[in-house]
């Protein structure tokens, strides 16, 4: 039986894949890897389908023992990785054998790392996906983050036609950067009419700080305050100026419940509610916010739909370059 034995779970490590799409209409968010570029690159390095289930670890990586020969790759946040105590590089295909132990130091930049194993993490699919949806405890490994002593089933190793060779790497220039202030490209809109002009300006000009409330559900930010337009609240909305008649929240949408702490909703978030949304992160920049952590600084950079679509094409072409480099 080929398994991955969890010696130490890390701070918050879950099984994730490309996401559980197609159930937003019943109120189920997609879950899935927050940083899709790093996640997909890790799979490409080990010869998996780009969307195979892998591990997403936040802040502190796990310690994992292998029970057979596999290829493994670590991508995402900057972290020192070792195999049986000897350093191995990130963003590269690394071979492991039965009994080998993979461990991690503290993350030095970024927030989330992705660990892909040849054959993929073979937990049962739930509604078409292996992603963990932590808020209601569904999918992934028993619907929860990993715990010490867990044994995760692995899929059949080996790629027909030969996978990437040991040492195959993602070129440096394609790896994510972790700037001092992370610019989050945002399409302003939805219910942004609820903000005054000064409120909207403050939203876009403030450099926001990531608070302790920052996880797969959402990121709460601090650093400025936003003013709502005065109005008589419409019927059914509730009395707070931040309230609207309950509506659907796009993944990546930003709301400002008290006027002073914007919340960016992410892959495990609630799918709707009664707070005014003022804009949406472009899908590609969920990768960027996923690599920010408590205390980091972010800003919202206004873009339009065309720029959002161009950024998406750019990520696809970067993934194509990874594919070529890895199979090169």
């Amino acid at each position, binding site marked *: 039986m080929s398994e991955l034995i969890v010696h130490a779970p890390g701070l918050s490590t879950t099984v994730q894949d490309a996401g559980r799409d197609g159930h937003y209409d019943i109120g189920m968010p997609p879950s899935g890897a927050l940083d899709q570029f790093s996640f997909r690159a890790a799979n490409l390095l080990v010869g998996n389908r780009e969307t195979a289930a892998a591990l997403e670890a936040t802040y502190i990586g796990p310690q994992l023992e292998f029970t057979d020969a596999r290829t493994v790759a670590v991508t995402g946040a900057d972290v020192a990785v070792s195999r049986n105590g000897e350093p191995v590089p990130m963003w590269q295909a690394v071979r492991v054998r039965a009994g080998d132990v993979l461990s991690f130091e503290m993350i030095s930049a970024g927030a989330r790392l992705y660990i892909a194993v040849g054959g993929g993490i073979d937990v049962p699919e739930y509604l078409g996906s292996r992603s963990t949806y932590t808020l209601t405890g569904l999918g992934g490994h028993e619907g929860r983050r990993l715990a010490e002593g867990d044994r995760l089933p692995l899929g059949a190793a080996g790629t027909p036609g030969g996978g990437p060779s040991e040492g195959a790497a993602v070129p440096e220039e394609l790896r994510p950067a972790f700037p001092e202030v992370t610019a989050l490209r945002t399409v302003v809109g939805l219910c942004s009419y609820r903000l005054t002009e000064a409120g909207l300006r403050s939203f876009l000009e403030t450099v926001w700080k990531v608070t302790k409330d920052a996880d797969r559900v959402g990121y709460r930010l601090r650093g400025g305050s936003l003013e709502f337009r005065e109005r008589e609240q419409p*019927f*059914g*909305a509730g009395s707070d100026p931040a309230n609207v008649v*309950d509506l*659907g929240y796009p993944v*990546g949408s930003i709301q400002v419940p008290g006027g002073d702490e914007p919340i960016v909703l992410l892959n495990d978030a609630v799918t709707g509610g009664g707070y005014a949304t003022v804009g949406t992160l472009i899908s590609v920049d969920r990768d960027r916010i996923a690599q920010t952590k408590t205390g980091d600084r972010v800003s919202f950079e206004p873009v339009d*739909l065309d720029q959002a679509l161009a950024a*998406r094409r750019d990520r696809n072409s970067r993934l194509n370059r990874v594919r070529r480099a890895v199979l090169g």
Partner: protein
Amino acid sequence: MVRTALTLPPARYEYGADEFVFVEIDQAMSLEANFKAMTITSALRARAPEGVVDICPSNASYLIRVDPDRLHPAELVEELRALEDSAAELTSEQVLHTRVVDMPVLYDDPWTRETLMRFRDRHQDPEATDLEYAARINGFSGTGPLIDALSGAPYIVTMLGFVPGLPFCYQMVPRERQIEVPKYVRPRTDTPERSFGFGGAFAVVYPVRGAGGYQLFGMAPAPVFDGTRSLPDFRDRVVFPRPGDIIRYRAVDQGEFDRIRGEVERGTFRYRIRDYAFRPADFLADPDAVTNELLEVLYR
């Protein structure tokens, strides 16, 4: 034939970046706005355009998730605008084939009462229970008449979401008989599973335990979400409610509550469900006649 022009402002189309299109039918809640959202989203569902991932009618708006690699969001908006033009009025010929469902509720139950007492510091009125507060601000003489109003006329499911299976339910009564309450001043960090809550003009049943900001009025013995799909009503779907369902939150006593809990635990519980051809135009023309008929269909 009854024709009802939907006197609503033009819809507002917004991009939720590259993967979502949000369409606001109206800022205020009304059955007219919901019927319009439902008409447009049903028509879109029937067309099933390539690249549309999710269609989510949501109270007085709707949200579409799109795969921009297969469908340009601007093209989708053009299609939605065309659908809006054809949904300017309702006629009796427009039929929503839906279900009428009996959902039992134990109002003023011990579990939500225990929870709401723990969070009085987050409430508008720390001295009262949520039911007492809601009765007072809605002009009822006490919690009894409020419960009669809550459990009398049925509701229509105008949105699913927040968490899987949570039905937003809008009572099918004219505006002047609508109950409206604010959400908690600061949301609770805990709400029991199956709590019956109320916020703004919406009744909900919380599918799972978790945070929440709605006023707590009671507890449903039967689930709206069943992740393991073990109950017969959940064989095909992990959630029970559907948009457009008509639900009556019938008041039950502790004895009936316990009996239903037993059936749920044995895996034998089934909701009382009747199919119904609902005509929104007829309802808007004579709400009480249609709700009387609905209840007759449900309990005959």
